[in-house]
């Protein structure tokens, strides 16, 4: 039986209407992305093949000199490539037990309150919270308390430890929440089955709990790591500006030496590196957790 022309027409009409609806629904997000992501990215790409004007800023040109100059910021790239995974790992080590407790051990009636406590600090700007740490770690904070018990001249602020602390503190909720979500969905019967089949609590944890929560772990890890790739505030405020990350290099290139083309070339490179890192993280996570994929890009 063939389909009559009217039916085909109305089917096409339906399809058109559906497509139009989809397009309308997608329009705001698309417009947002084009205006605030694609266009600036194109501008930066154009800047990156230009030259620094004699007084600073941008001067039109077509040269790859800025990219050839990238090794001048090799230390900053290297520092960032170390900071991002180490910071994310430190976050993970602190976050996992918290998420585990929240999802599996905390009494039901407390769970919401405890979760709220994890999220509430996020309502205050990171800048304010990092400033607060400056005073807690500074000479009038913990060192002053230590001086009371006779331990003089302790310096906590502007040390690598202070930077790591600031990072863990600042990004903790971003790590806790995805892990919590994946642990909360965990089918408890699997744990019982594992125990019934003679597994020790440790091997149950490693073989079942940890394994099934890996998508959450990788999501949290990738989220924190991407943000850390561009981090410059915490190292500046808690590290005393002595440790130079790629974010700091970018700030200086745009605000101090006003070398916009070189800054743009670094920005483009940073984006490419982030994409590569993410793809790698995705691959690893897919392999580790079997078939389940975590898509961030």
């Amino acid at each position, binding site marked *: 039986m063939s389909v009559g022309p009217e039916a085909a027409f109305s089917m096409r009409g339906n399809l058109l209407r559906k497509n139009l609806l989809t397009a309308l629904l997608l329009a705001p997000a698309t417009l947002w992305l084009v205006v605030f992501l694609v266009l600036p990215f194109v501008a930066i790409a154009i800047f990156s093949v230009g030259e*620094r004007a*004699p*007084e*600073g*800023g941008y001067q039109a040109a077509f040269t790859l000199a800025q990219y050839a100059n990238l090794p*001048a*910021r090799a*230390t*900053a790239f290297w*520092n960032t490539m170390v900071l991002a995974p180490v910071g994310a790992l430190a976050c993970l080590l602190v976050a996992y037990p918290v998420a585990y407790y929240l999802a599996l051990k905390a009494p039901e009636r407390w769970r919401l309150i405890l979760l709220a406590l994890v999220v509430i600090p996020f309502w205050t700007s990171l800048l304010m919270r990092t400033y607060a740490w*400056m005073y807690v770690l*500074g*000479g*009038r904070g913990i*060192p002053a308390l230590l001086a009371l018990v006779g331990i003089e001249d302790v*310096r906590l*602020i*502007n040390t690598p430890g202070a930077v790591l602390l600031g990072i863990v503190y600042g990004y903790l909720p971003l790590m806790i929440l995805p892990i919590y979500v994946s642990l909360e969905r965990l089918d408890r019967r699997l744990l019982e089955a594992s125990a019934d089949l003679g597994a020790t609590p440790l091997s149950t944890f490693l073989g079942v709990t940890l394994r099934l929560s890996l998508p959450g772990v990788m999501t949290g890890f990738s989220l924190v790591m991407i943000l850390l790739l561009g981090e410059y505030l915490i190292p*500046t405020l808690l590290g*005393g*500006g*002595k440790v*130079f990350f790629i974010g*700091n*290099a970018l700030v*200086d*290139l*745009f*605000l*101090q*030496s*006003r*070398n916009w083309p070189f800054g743009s070339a670094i920005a483009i490179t940073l984006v490419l590196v982030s994409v590569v890192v993410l793809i790698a993280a995705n691959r690893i996570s897919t392999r580790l957790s079997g078939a389940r994929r975590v898509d961030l890009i």
Partner: protein
Amino acid sequence: MSKSYRDGLPISPEKFVDQLMRLKRGSIGRREFLGLTGLGVATAVMARELGIMPTPAYAAENLGDRMSIATWPNYHDPATFESFKAETGVAVEVNVFGSNEEMLAKLQAGASGWSLFVPTNYTISTYKKLGIIEALDMAKLANFDGTQEDPRFTSEGTIDGVTYAVPKNWGTTGFSINTKKLTKPMTSWKEFWDTAMAEGDGRTMVHDYQLTTIGNALKYYGYSFNSLKPDELAKAEELLLKVKPHLFAVSSDYQPSMRAGDAWMTMCWTNDGAQLNRGIPEIAYVLGKEGGEIWTDFYAIPKDAPNKPAGYALLNYLMNPKVAVKEHLANGAPSTDARVNALLPKEVLDNPILYPAADLLTPLEFGAAATLTDPGRAELMARFKSA
């Protein structure tokens, strides 16, 4: 006690920030801070900002109701802007910067939104060349009197007979030492850098600012503060890289760390040196005997200022010696204006931090325009910071 128009008025945003900064510097306690800036008071400020409480209107010219100024940290008496608002109805938003480069970057990018800003002497010729500052209409600045200014400090505001900027104050770049922690007397940049690697290990700060950090490292070898010579800059870099692991911080915001006792020694501008010494007498200010920087900060108006009438009005207001004298008392930097000096109390004029002996001033150099835009110095600074 005289009654001021301010009595009984709620705290202004500027004052709030001032109190917050004082709390931050530790010159008032938390309790006092809360008392001065409590919730009820904050609500009143909001009510006024939202226009529930009226502000007096200014008769002569339409100045609008707000403007924005770009300036340096701890640089003005907040009461100045408050009284300007009381007289004109114009609220002044204050933007604070850490380096001339940063101000230039904002102006180059366009739409800074400032109607007045405070550039340092050596940057003015670049601003003029780029065409981003206004040739000042002196008729609108009746309070400014060029004949009363010390030409040593003011010449760079005028280019080819046209005035682009008028001076705010002058000052020097030396270093501050906490003499309770570092007891050895110091008089030179050589001692500054050597101490940073010895007794001052882990307790020394340098500016996050190429002009002064590189310039004062050049002074270690007796080179010019403004040198652009590759071999001299290479020596300065060698010193900076050697000192780097011993530093407490690379930052131009050193008052909080010095006040908290975290840092014991820092590169320092006159006005900060005077403020630190005023709050904590054991923090001394030293000018390196090899020389270093002498500077003048100016007021200038960007060409794209959104509210030029208010920019001129505020500038003219600030040039009134009676207003300027209060600015100098708060800020701590010396004035270029003889009329202001006549009004300053004797103990200020006798303060060697503000008015150093002539033999210490002689070797000082004004920053050179070329250092602002030289890519070599910018890259050296980046290598120092990333080391």
